């Protein structure tokens, strides 16, 4: 690994650059920045489009040992001042006086003769603190919407099929708070099916639904969930946990089908919720990866 200059050495180079170049060549500012690859660079902002000929493109810093370090100099054209640049095409605004208005006579308190005007109450001191709710309650600042869809073909009755499977990334947590689904034309009116949601090997819930209507819109065909009104639920999937949604078509009540009865068609499930980032420390959330032994307390485990 090549030797790199110390922070002090870089700052001295910056001071040297300011000494050498300030006030010349229409330079506005000279700063030391880090590029995204952590490479230090001197950034010169100027109102001249290009540097004058012969202007250095790098500073050579002598190090204690090894080859000198080349500190690049970037010339950045800033053109007009920012405000002009941004608002140059806007309609000019002229300042005008705002006329204060007063309440009408009916709102003026009636004063007895000799009574002083009423005075305002004392200032009230209020403490205002933003509450950060845990991200299993509300999405945090860095959360993304989690609206996903999975499909599977369903060749037979009374057989569980995995319609959706997703492993939550190591830096995220997923809250699923709604589910809706639809079939292709495979099941008929009043046929029932079960939806099962599992977290890894842990089956969180299983519930029944039925094809309740022959409505054209698939969002209006099922008894307990539709795309307009997903069934409400609460499923938390922490990082590295697997979300699994399974479907099993049972047929008409009472259920007489077996796994050998052919069905055909496809099933599509849609989950709704959010995916929070576990990397943010300022969301008020409590996560296993950063709470240490206090984890269970902070997570509401009593």
């Amino acid at each position, binding site marked *: 690994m090549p030797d790199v200059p110390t922070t002090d050495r870089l700052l001295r180079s910056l001071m040297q650059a300011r000494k050498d170049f300030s006030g010349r060549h229409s330079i506005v500012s000279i700063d030391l920045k880090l590029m995204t690859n952590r490479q230090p660079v001197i950034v010169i902002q100027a109102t001249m489009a290009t540097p004058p000929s012969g202007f250095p493109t790098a500073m050579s810093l002598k190090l204690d040992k090894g080859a000198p370090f080349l500190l690049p100099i970037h010339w950045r054209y800033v053109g007009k001042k920012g405000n002009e640049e941004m608002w140059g095409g806007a309609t000019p605004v002229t300042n005008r006086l705002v006329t204060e208005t007063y309440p009408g006579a009916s709102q003026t308190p009636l004063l007895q003769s000799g009574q002083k005007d009423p005075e305002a109450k004392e200032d009230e001191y209020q403490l205002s603190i933003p509450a950060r709710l845990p991200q299993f*309650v509300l999405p945090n600042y860095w959360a993304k919407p989690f609206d996903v869809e999975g499909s599977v073909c369903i060749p037979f009755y009374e057989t569980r099929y995995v319609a959706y499977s997703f492993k939550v990334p190591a830096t995220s947590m997923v809250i699923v708070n709604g589910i809706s689904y639809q079939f292709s034309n495979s099941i008929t009116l009043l046929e029932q099916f079960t939806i099962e949601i599992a977290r890894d090997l842990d089956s969180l819930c299983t519930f029944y*639904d039925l094809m*309740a209507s022959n409505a054209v819109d698939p969002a209006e065909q099922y008894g307990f969930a539709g795309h307009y009104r997903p069934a409400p639920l609460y499923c*938390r999937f922490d990082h590295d946990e697997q979300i699994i949604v399974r479907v099993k078509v049972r047929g008409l009540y009472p259920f007489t089908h077996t796994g050998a009865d052919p069905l055909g068609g496809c099933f599509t499930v849609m989950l709704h919720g959010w995916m929070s980032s576990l990397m943010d420390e300022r969301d008020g959330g409590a996560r296993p990866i950063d709470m240490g032994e206090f984890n269970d307390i902070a997570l509401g*485990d009593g």
Partner: protein
Amino acid sequence: MPLDLSPAKAAAMEEVLRAMRDSNVPLRRPSFSNPTFWSRPLISTIAVPLAADTVWSDILTVNGLSGYSGMVTGYVATAYGDTSLAATRFRIIYNGSHVDTVDFVSSVERNRESATLFPTFPQATFFNLLSDKDSLTIQAINDGTFQQLVLCAFYGWYYDNSNQAERGSLGELTDA
């Protein structure tokens, strides 16, 4: 009284406020207001035919879960056909007792936008199944002549609650 603080105290107050503003204090709602990290979904649904009868039938029962309390926040109780004509009545049973504060007016639809429009949607309710011995049941009776298909559901969450105060009393906000 206006606050009359010395500059030193005012500075200390500012520091306290700054620390609170910038700190990462997890605020949590009680487990019966919002699911917690360890909560599990509570969703139970059924669609079952109900014959005309003169006695009430259990349609859907949700039980507590061992080690958890259950919070039921929504229910569906409706007939598949036009509720205003279906002549079915519903009631809720909590631990074997009729909950007379939940009055299902017969022939009034509360879980669908129209007699034929699906899906159903839950109405908000509030039942806390404090232990796994508690149960909540929707019963129905069909006063008419024909068999009716009834659709019932409970929605909510189970919460892992080892907090004794919260488990035994609904009045305590112990962990907000």
